[in-house]
């Protein structure tokens, strides 16, 4: 499925989706991740044909379904969609819901397909139940079975777990992730939840204000965000200012945490000196990349005071007060514990991280 240069909106003159391009390979799952109001659901509805596009085109396979003068009605797009609320027809049984999209199939095949779809979502034997007798998680699974039964070319999921409570959400999410991988259907899933995007998506597209900021694998997105906003939206982040110190084969930034190794910016040749005015940078340090130790401090001699310690079992999250007045978050193994008010030594640990020229990564661009 290909989305090419699509813009759309509801009010004349205001685009909620601006020139977005995105390709989903056959069998791949792409998650559209963004804060509410970023246009991700609108884009999904445009793919389904529930909203028109103003510019650009959408193709399913090789068929253009929206844009460039083409328009295929939603019912002819072979697109399946699971809504936030499941949207099960309350007056029909589970089996009749699943059979709803199988009108063109011979009757004998319909029954077999319904059984198959129910087995796929682990609800065999629930066919005669009415939707309101099911739990929220079961309803979403029926909705998934219903949209998969006609073998759609593309499956769309619109915040499919947001109506479920927290414990159920984790369980249904893993279950749906398993099913999507098992049947390898081309899928676009919209979510505002980073964990959901990472669990389900082979790749994740981060959207903001109608634009796609970055498309990458979950790991790439977490480790190499293209700007401080993405860094802050995807996971917890410390943004430190630093000064580039160009070594012969490595790039180091001097920060309040001590020296931090920086990945070579892809657009600059190895060992090249920073451009004028670009030696001041914003450095991304994830909390788990801060090591906290007891005094005395190591060679670099950086220390901080523990302002707060939250014990989470698998790790402890510290809020550290640095000597230059800034605040730094760290996630460390629970042992040894550092009590509140104690002075600790701090250092960077882990592979090289990313940095952006300070001028570009200004503070107002941070995700808060």
């Amino acid at each position, binding site marked *: 499925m290909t989305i090419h240069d699509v813009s759309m909106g509801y009010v004349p003159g205001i685009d909620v989706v601006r020139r977005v391009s995105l390709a989903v390979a056959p069998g791949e799952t792409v998650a559209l991740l963004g804060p509410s109001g970023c246009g991700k659901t609108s884009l999904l*509805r445009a793919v*389904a*044909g*529930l*909203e028109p596009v103003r510019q650009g085109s959408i193709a399913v396979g090789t068929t253009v379904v929206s844009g460039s003068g083409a328009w295929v*009605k*939603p*019912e*002819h*797009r072979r*697109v*399946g*969609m699971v*809504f*936030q*609320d499941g*949207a099960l*027809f*309350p*007056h029909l049984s589970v089996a009749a819901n699943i059979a*709803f*999209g199988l*009108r*063109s199939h011979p009757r004998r095949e319909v029954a077999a397909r319904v059984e198959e779809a129910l087995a796929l979502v682990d609800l065999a034997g629930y066919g005669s139940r009415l939707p*309101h007798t099911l739990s929220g998680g079961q309803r979403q699974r029926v909705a998934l079975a*219903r*949209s998969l039964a*006609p073998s759609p070319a593309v499956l769309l999921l619109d915040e499919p777990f947001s*109506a479920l409570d927290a414990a159920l959400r984790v369980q249904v999410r893993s279950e749906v992730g398993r099913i999507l991988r098992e049947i390898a259907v081309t899928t676009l899933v919209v979510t505002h939840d980073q964990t959901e995007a990472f669990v389900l998506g082979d790749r994740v597209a981060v959207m903001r204000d109608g634009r796609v900021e970055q498309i990458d694998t979950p790991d790439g997105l977490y480790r190499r965000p293209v700007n401080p906003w993405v860094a802050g939206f995807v996971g917890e982040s410390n943004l430190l200012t630093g000064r580039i110190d160009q070594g012969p084969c490595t790039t180091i930034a001097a920060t309040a945490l001590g020296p931090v190794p920086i990945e070579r910016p892809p657009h600059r040749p190895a060992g090249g000196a920073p451009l004028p005015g670009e030696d001041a940078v914003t450095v991304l340090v994830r909390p788990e990349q801060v090591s906290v130790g007891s005094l005395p401090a190591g060679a670099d001699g950086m220390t901080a005071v523990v302002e707060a310690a939250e014990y989470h079992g698998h790790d402890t999250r510290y809020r550290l007060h640095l000597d230059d007045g800034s605040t730094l978050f760290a996630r460390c193994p629970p042992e040894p514990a550092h009590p509140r008010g104690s002075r600790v030594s701090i250092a960077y640990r882990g592979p090289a991280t990313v940095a952006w020229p300070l001028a570009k990564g200004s503070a107002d661009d941070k995700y808060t």
Partner: protein
Amino acid sequence: MPAHLGLRLLCSLVGMVFAAPALLVLVRAASLGGDLGPLARQLAGPLWRSIQLAVLVSVTAASVGTLLAWLVTRTDLPGRRLWRAVLMLPMVLPSFVGAAAFIAGLAPGGMLHEALQAVGMTPPRRFRGLGAAWLILSAFTYPYVLLPVSARLSRVPQSLHDSARLLGHSAWSTFVRVTVPHIRASVAASTLLVFLYTWSELGAVQLVGFDTLTRVVYASRLVDRPTSFGAAALLAVLAAGVVLGERRLRGQAGPDRGVALVPGRPVSLGRAVAPATAACALVASVGLLVPVASLGLWAQRGITSGRIDLGQLIAPARSTAMVGVAAAALAVIVVLPVAMASVRHPRPATGLASLGVAGGFAVPGLVIALSLAYLTLNTPLLGPFYQSAGLLVAAYVLHFGLQALGPDEQGVRSVPDPVRESAALLEPSRWRRVARVDLPLMTPNLAAGGGLVLLSTVKELPATLLLAPIGFSTLATTIFNAYEDGFYAEAGAASLLLVAVSAALTWLLVLRRGLAG
């Protein structure tokens, strides 16, 4: 002693009192019995006309109401929000006032008469019979379908439509297979209410001279007891059946479970915009514009010619308010035990009691009035009540108590157990607890229930005609008598006052909520 015995006994007692008038009529009809053959021949015609009218009006109101509901909720009809409000308004006109407005409008000198002459058409000489009754009752009852069905339609989640489309169904197939099942029960339930309304109607059919069962009861109540009670028994039995059906359907229409609503794209009417707008305009003219203008013209003529004195309206208006407010307050209090028992301790017996209250509403007001008149005239101790305002208030309470029951139940629900328990821990005095916690929380609901009863009493005619003491006239009886005697100018002013009061109450109690939903 079993728990809550007092409350449960009281609840059952109230239920029996509400069911009593209808049962009394049935028993009386059976005992008067006599010659069934002639009676059956006598009632066959009116029964057939009642059924004819009720079926015709129900079908018309259901089609018009559902079509308009769809137009104002799911299409891009220009000004649909305004239409939605305007098209509800005919429900503020009692149908006998509507009938009177058309009769007066078609009479020589009336607005319609002059308008038809102005365009060179001959005005019809009379406005009578089935056609007239059908037009009037349809024009003023379709809002009872429009209101619930449009509320229901706007609650069909957009995601259901979208899902159906994505599963390969066309717009039409989606309408038939998704939308219709959603509104079917609501349409059916509201159509039964229209049937009941038409079935119990007296004022309009009397004015247009269409001989239905109610008219037989009214005309023969003093001269031919067996006929009157036989007709009343027929009315009661069928009405009770209709209400049972309505309650069953309403259960199915039940509240839908919370869903996130995506603002849907309305259906584009395209070239159908013009006929759709014309249909809305036609319905609004027949149900609102023409009657109100016709009444206004007569009233204005009467006032400018000095023939009527607005001061004469003060006494009927005061009487209307007095009996209405008394009935409203009493109804809210009387059904409270039923509400409390059925919310806090639901049992088969409480269900039966609320069915009794519903029975009082189902039975035409005329039948209740007949029953109460018979009871007071034939029971020595109750004799003094005949021809008293108190008896009229009692009839109102028995007939409209159901309208206070729903709000009362809401009120009881607004004081949930945890709140009552914490109140019990903090305030030891039971009465002060009621005053400080229960009443403040319940007041809005109780007031709404009382308001609904008041609205109904203001528009009520048959029971008032039968039971009002001599010399005691309400707005409704003043209007009815003036029209029967052809005093259009006098009646016009009183009608406008009644419509204004009814409009204010309807807006506050019914439309404001209905339109918000």
